[in-house]
């Protein structure tokens, strides 16, 4: 995934968080697994995106300490986040339909 696509990355992250709350490492793992290794996100991309989403109140975070003493920040999508995600999904579908149509006509 190209690094300078924060809008798409945040859409993917929001989509992942839709079902359940996750911490950063989990998000990277899950993205890798669900995209069948197409999206291998770097931490350097993920955390700025997560913190940006949090700042915009599209996600909320809570800290929890594991039994190994690791402090994990769990992110969950907010109502506002869900609305934004819905819009982005629509945009993406329009875009993707248009590309498909053009490719099919080629």
């Amino acid at each position, binding site marked *: 995934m190209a690094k300078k696509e924060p809008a798409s990355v945040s859409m993917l992250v929001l989509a992942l968080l839709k079902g359940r709350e996750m*911490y*950063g*490492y989990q998000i990277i*793992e899950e993205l890798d697994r669900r995209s069948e290794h197409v999206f291998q996100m*770097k*931490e*350097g*991309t993920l*955390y*700025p995106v997560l*913190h*940006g989403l949090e*700042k915009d109140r599209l996600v909320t975070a809570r*800290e929890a300490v*594991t039994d*190994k003493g*690791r*402090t*994990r*920040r769990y992110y969950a999508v907010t109502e506002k986040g869900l609305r934004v995600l819905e819009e982005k999904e629509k945009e993406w579908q329009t875009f993707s339909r248009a590309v498909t149509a053009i490719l099919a006509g080629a």
Partner: protein
Amino acid sequence: MNRLDWLDTATKKIYFRPDRKAVRRELEAHLEDLLEASGLDEDAALKEMGDPEAIAEELGRLHRPWLGYLWRASQLALLGAAVMYCLVLAMLAARPGYSYRAIPGMRLYHYLQADMDTIDPARVLEERVLSPSTVLETGGYTISLDQAVFRRVSESDSLDQAVFRRVSESDGPQWNLYIALDITSSRWEEPLDYWFSLSGGRTDAGPMEYGFTRNTSHWGFWQKCGFEIEGLPEDTEWVELDFGYGKLKRTLHISLTEEAET
């Protein structure tokens, strides 16, 4: 580059300390998860996580310091205000009769002083400041004698006063008694407004009822009650203020023979 350097570098542009520490903890936990799951050594894992300088730029842009400091400053201001409020309340609780005078804007007004001040000091021939030590507790109220002054006042020479004096029976210098009570209640906004009566006398003679004027003001838990009794015989040794009647009657005894040490 070891893990500490990496974490320091990646978070170096977050200037608000609590934020920086939180992000650092998060990244460190991530690194540990990665080390554990991937079996990579630390160097490889750090490389995997990315360029700390680039991360620092991005994170620094997101975590603007002034917002954090503003938030912290407003928290401190709030805390300060709360502490001040508690201090004021504690002071009031400790010395209910006195401290409120120090608080500007509080509506309690010392009527007694006002009553006493209406009299020209030149007319005060003699004054006994009595030692207030009496406290009475009744029905959730604590009534304490704040101040009692027994003074001999000469006849006024102003026309108004002269006419008034003619109408009332008093003639010539007379003894007036001023009493200020502090009343604190265990409930908010419940002024003590009982029926009052006042009697006075000497140990070797029976009590006499006296009329009085009463002024009262109250604020919250506190109430100030001022009594003015005019024309009391000079040899009066005590007065008693009765609150309420029947079984509920409580009496505050005030000795007029114990003068305050000055």
